[in-house]
């Protein structure tokens, strides 16, 4: 882990303590003269080791909320804290380091780089964290870690394949392996099965559930599918820009 990451990260909180919080979160999109308020007052606390599902209709602002929580975007109001620190007060490079070392992202459309093969895509966050020489020094270790993750995802037989030669399910497995490469404390999953058929989606959800149950991985997942949301410890519904708890 890089020096910058060390400064950002603090010792892992005890299981169940708050790791990520949002209070009074507001996000407005401007379309010409008009304004669309997507999030009006969102409050959220994510505990360490928790699996949260955020449910909502299309266009309700689920992905926007995930981007704000994952330090990918900036809010128009409210505070997000990670490990007790206000993310908005971090510089853009510190936020990038946070995304690299503390967070992992899984997107609906996989978002793998077409120029890199499966193994290289998995190593992406490690290639960002390490310099040319640093990566060379730890190359074997990092490659072994990536291969282990891909083996866990059942992708060890496609290491040299490019994303365009993989099925949707396989791409998503690679995306999950990539997200886990730097041991993130929070894994953000944005409609991870939204682009997959039922059976493949079920398999991907099984992977996420296993991660949560076996490794205690903190997961924040957004979905519009109640049956998938039910796999989480807690379900929250985003409606009218406000987040509320929902029954399983």
């Amino acid at each position, binding site marked *: 882990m890089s020096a910058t990451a060390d400064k950002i990260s603090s010792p892992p909180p005890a299981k169940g303590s708050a790791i990520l919080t949002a209070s009074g979160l507001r996000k407005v999109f401007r379309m010409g003269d008009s304004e669309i308020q997507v999030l009006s007052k969102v409050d959220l606390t994510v505990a360490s080791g928790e699996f949260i599902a955020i449910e909502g209709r299309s266009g309700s602002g689920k992905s926007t909320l995930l981007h704000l929580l994952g330090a990918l*975007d900036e809010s128009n109001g409210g505070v997000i804290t990670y490990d007790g620190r206000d993310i908005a007060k971090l510089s853009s*490079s510190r936020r990038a380091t946070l995304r690299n*070392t503390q967070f992992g992202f899984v997107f609906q459309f996989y978002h793998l780089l077409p120029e890199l093969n499966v193994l290289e895509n998995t190593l*992406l966050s490690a*290639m*960002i*964290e390490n*310099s*040319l020489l640093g990566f060379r020094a730890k190359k074997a270790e990092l490659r072994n870690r990536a291969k282990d993750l891909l083996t866990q995802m059942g992708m060890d037989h496609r290491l040299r394949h490019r994303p365009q030669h993989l099925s949707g399910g396989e791409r998503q497995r690679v995306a999950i392996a990539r997200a886990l490469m730097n041991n993130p404390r929070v894994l953000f999953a944005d409609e991870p099965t939204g682009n997959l058929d039922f059976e493949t989606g079920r398999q991907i959800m099984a992977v996420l559930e296993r991660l949560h149950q076996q490794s205690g991985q903190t997961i924040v997942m957004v979905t519009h599918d109640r049956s998938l949301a039910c796999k989480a410890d807690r379900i929250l519904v985003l409606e009218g820009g406000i987040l509320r708890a929902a029954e399983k």
Partner: protein
Amino acid sequence: MSPIEIILWSIVAIAPIATVFALISILTGPRLISKLMFRYLVKRRIAWVSLIAVMLCTAMVLIVISVMGGWLRMFRQTNHALIGDLIVYRGSLDGFSHYEDMMADIAKIPGIKAVTPTIHAVGLAEIGLARTPNPIRTPVEVVGLDIKRIGQVNGFVDSLHLQPDVLHAKSKEFAEAAQKDHDAVSPDENLETAEAKSFQAKADSFPSWQKPLPDEVYRDELPKAKNAARFGGIVVGSGVIGLRGNDPREDFIYKATVKLTLLKISGDFASADLQDKTSTNYYWLIDDSRTGVYQADQNFVYLPFDVLQNELNMGASTYTDANTGHQETEPARCTEILISVNPGIDPHAIKPQISDAVSAVLQKFGLYYPDPGALRVETWDEKQRDFLSAVEHEKSLLVILFAIISVVAIFLVFCIFFMIVMEKTRDIGIVKSVGATSYSIAGIFLGYGLTIGIFGGGMGLLMAYLVVHNINQLHAWMGEHFGIQIWNAKTYLFDTIPNTMDAYDVIVIVSVAILSSVLGALVPAIRAARMNPVEALRWE
């Protein structure tokens, strides 16, 4: 400084900064920079267009500058070699007198290495083998020089074909041939033919006006001319007898006669009456000279200084003054004094002392040469200044043209990189979502530009090297197959196209190619770095 100048200089200053940033990013930044940079280079074929553009621009500039700079260098070197370091001359064929006094005074100046007089005259040469019906008839410029001294002043001696090693080889060749023929009859006898001895003697006395073949050969060539063996030797420019480059010299060319008719001009000569003022004599062609200067090689023939001086009646003579009845002495004349200086001495710095020495002699003997035939002292480069400055101005013009070409290359790289950044918007979002900083993103595209510059510049250098080093063969091939002749020796003075590259030019041009590529990538790189990751991920 005007606002435009400020903008231009800012751009010039930004290019190396961006290049250093790209280098630092590749070496110390995230591994992803070098990974994606090279992967994009291999996979994105549109970038090859910019790579080829940089390559072609670099090659074109290098080839033109190398040929032009090489020409200028050759022109300077050959003219320096032909003239020496300084020259005292008159712009008139009747020359000037008291040159020996001038030479004696010039030789006393500290730093002077050698001084020698030469004479330039015009003539008509008829060159041919004694027994062949079609001689070459051509107007020539006849140069009289002291072959023993000229080598200390300029490079004329090096231009001769029959150098000592060639003469030794010819001598050996004759001896071995004779030995071979004779071995069957008398193997123990060590034969040294007259030809072998003659070539050996010429080698031993090199440089000299000595004939390479024995006297009897010349007698046999012209049996009717009783004094044929006593004809003097003449050296001709290689082009005068139709030789080019390293054409082989057959032995029969040393049996050729040169009938030379000279236009004589006396010191008080006022009109060019050729009937009364010509002298015709015969010489044996003893060697050819190839200076590399087209004009000299095509037009010059060379005679011993004293021979030409006598033929032109420019030697010292006595006459009776019609008015006084007294015996008067007409001093000897030459048309040029060539001077060389010791190593480390600047010819420009020593020139005033030489001018003073020349002026003192003129004053002492009450001589006055009015313009346009005034007696001048000039350094070798001043003598050629009209030509040199014209070519240097042309080179400056080319530099401006190449600056425009660089701007075109920058815009081409800019357009292609802008397209690549647009095309790779989603990738930029992905990489940012995984934690790449804006600096890293900028590093990827600047590094990409740097790589294009290095590869394009390197390939351009290789291409230019291959073209420049084979330019004469290429030119000959183009002429043979397509009838294209770009290089005209009459226009460019040299019969070969310069084929060397200057290290300084290479460093500057390749560096500019690299900087231009990085500069072209700069704006797209900044745009990529400033992208919002969420907007980039949503890019369709």
